[in-house]
């Protein structure tokens, strides 16, 4: 695959916009969001992670946010932060060659559901708001990013759960390899709403004591083909060397996720031409609970042996963020590389799998 350089990144999570807020979220002192917000209906349980009092106009510093849903606002905020971080200047000479690829689980569950609700409870079923209709379409935030930042290149939305962001990276790598685009803003987003909060609660496999509630946010990365112009690169050193994904169908009712995940990690290492000994950092997601976390660590140990590798877990800090989890794993890698500062030998693994059967792994060099 085409090696991709990360020339900038940006995040928004319950702790706020930007890198400092992201780092703060990993500080256990940062409690879950509290206070009045439309997202807090119903009242949050302990461990929920959402942005209190989200003000779209203030966050995006521009008009035109009135009909945007929360998912679009979060995506635009993170995307803008990534563009600023990279120093990428969008103009008529390059906008046709800059794309956006965004991962999501439902699009906006709330926008879809609220629209359906209106057809059920209004005195006429067609008394819905036409201006909100685009929000019910899954690619709305991606199209909004194209409009907001004037990007006319490849514009794709990828649906998935935990592994969605790795699919985003694969799509971005292909777009560059096949010369459909020179630069891709790759990200993933999930919003905290009553719908996702209750979905998380009703599907929670772990005990509440584990403290992983539902979260929200977005992370974006400015990706450029390594062969391309790197004038804008502030993170000159960070490269995504390989991304491998696969699917594990049920066989006689069960899935062999363990073997598939190990196979993915090994293939990612081979493609990256990186030996297991070189990996210095692993970014784990796993929000679904302790049992899932044990499965991931067990399979990593099967590939890397008993050696201790520095490990960062995004879910305890950021909550269960569905499609955004993979992007937050990647953001944690970027933050980790920055802390390691100039350590030439930094190599990170981003593994992912979902109960639905998809598996994946990426190797990143810092």
């Amino acid at each position, binding site marked *: 695959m085409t090696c991709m350089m990360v020339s900038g990144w940006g995040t928004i999570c319950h702790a706020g916009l930007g890198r400092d807020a992201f780092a703060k979220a990993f500080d256990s002192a940062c409690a879950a969001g509290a206070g009045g917000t439309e997202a807090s209906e119903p009242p949050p349980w302990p461990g929920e992670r959402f942005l209190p009092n989200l003000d779209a106009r203030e966050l995006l510093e521009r008009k035109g946010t009135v009909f945007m849903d929360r998912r679009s606002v979060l995506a635009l905020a993170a995307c803008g932060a990534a563009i600023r971080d990279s120093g990428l200047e969008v103009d008529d000479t390059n906008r046709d060659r800059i*794309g956006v690829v965004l991962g999501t689980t439902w699009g906006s569950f709330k926008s879809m559901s609220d629209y359906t609700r209106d057809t*059920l409870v209004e005195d006429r079923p067609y008394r819905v708001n036409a201006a909100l209709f685009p929000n019910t*379409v899954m690619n709305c935030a991606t199209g909004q990013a194209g409009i907001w930042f004037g990007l006319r290149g490849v514009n794709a939305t990828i649906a998935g759960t935990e592994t969605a962001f790795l699919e985003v990276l694969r799509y971005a790598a292909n777009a560059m390899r096949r010369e459909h685009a020179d630069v891709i803003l790759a990200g993933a987003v999930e919003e905290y709403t009553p719908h996702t909060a209750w979905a998380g609660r009703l599907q929670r496999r772990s005990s509440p004591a584990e403290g992983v509630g539902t979260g929200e946010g977005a992370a974006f990365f400015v990706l450029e083909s390594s062969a391309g112009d790197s004038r804008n690169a502030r993170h000159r050193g960070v490269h995504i060397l390989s991304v491998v994904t696969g699917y*594990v169908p049920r066989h006689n009712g069960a899935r062999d996720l363990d073997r598939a995940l190990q196979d993915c990690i090994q293939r990612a290492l081979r493609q990256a031409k990186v030996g297991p000994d070189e990996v210095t950092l692993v970014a784990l997601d796993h929000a679904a609970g302790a049992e899932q976390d044990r499965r991931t660590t067990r399979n990593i140990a099967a590939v890397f042996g008993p050696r201790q590798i520095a490990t960062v877990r995004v879910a305890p800090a950021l909550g269960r963020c569905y499609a955004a989890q993979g992007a937050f794993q990647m953001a944690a890698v970027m933050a980790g590389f920055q802390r390691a500062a100039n350590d030439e030998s930094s190599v990170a693994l981003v593994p992912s799998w979902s109960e639905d059967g998809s598996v994946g792994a990426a190797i990143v060099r810092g």
Partner: protein
Amino acid sequence: MRRVAITGVGPVSSIGVGKDAFLAGLREGRSGISRIASFDVSGFPNTRAGEVRDFEPTEILQRLNPAAWGRSSLFAAAAGRLAVNDAGLVPDDAPPERVAVVMGTTCGESSVIEALTAEIVERGYEFMSPDLLAQSPAGRIADGVCEELAATGGSTTLATACSASNYAIGYAYDNVAEGDVDVVVAGGADSVCRWVHAGFYRLGALAREDCAPFDRDRQGLLTAEGGSAVVLEELDHARQRGARVYAEVLGYGSNCDAEHIVAPSASSIAACMQLAHRNSHVQPGDIDYVCAHGTGTPSNDLAETRAMQEVFGERVPVTSSIKSMLGHTMGAASGFGAIASALAIHEGFVPPTTHWKTPDPTLGNLEPVPNQARSASVRVVQNNGFAFGGNNAIVIFGACS
């Protein structure tokens, strides 16, 4: 570079399920439009859509348990199974890790979201069914196809709205051409639902009776549903197993209007056509037939025609819209266009634009193949797909020499 063939087609549509029924439907200009049965239309002024009325997943699916999957995933899995059967692919032909799935969708598992919403409205959030929640993520649409076909090469769901299956076919083509895998089952799926029907009505984009693309008096689209899938296979791989080749994928282009979230842009669509031609190494004069996006809304058909006039000049190719028969199947739409394109090339005909009565002077010399399919030698087809969000994607198919 590896060449990529279309060796199987799997339509699950309102005009027919399976290749033979779908082909017959296209040839005779069959209408798949009927009074909506999948939800209560009481209170809606417009009551028609393109539903797949006789969809029986159990008759098609071999591995998937229909009770555990949403309607869109079932459409996708059934389409994938039909396409693989049509291609004559058996498990020994390709190891599972060399087979991937890429499917498109606009609204994902919309009927599942609507069932959950009914629970919310009736009893509250806390009464959402965990089983329905498990079925609700849109990524399940490609997962279901992987599950049905026991494919392990990857599951990708592209949610780029109404051009999503062209995105899927384009991405699949790149993956086969580069040798990542040898076979990709690609297409799309969506289900008729209340919210989309209401939304298009509120936008003033919904037709009352029939969808009449390119007609002067066209009123709009009709929502529709189904699953579309094609088998993309590396050409030598197909030849070695003696497969029938319908057509070859020559290339594709995609771009974003970046102007308005719902209104199409003729200049951006024209740019997308040029991207597709360049990627496919064809000239505008090579295109024999355009399988139009052709939703039947005044604005789409005008923008699409203007874009073609800009790219093709005086010689706009013969153009028809199969949405006149199927309705707008959203994420499945350009997949049905791809199937129609492959069949047009292989069978030597052009499908009609039905319900067409009156020429529209604002569309110039557009030739919409009114009401009757036509025999023709078709060597190169341009399959258009446009979407909310300004997501344009166009795939070019050619006769396989």
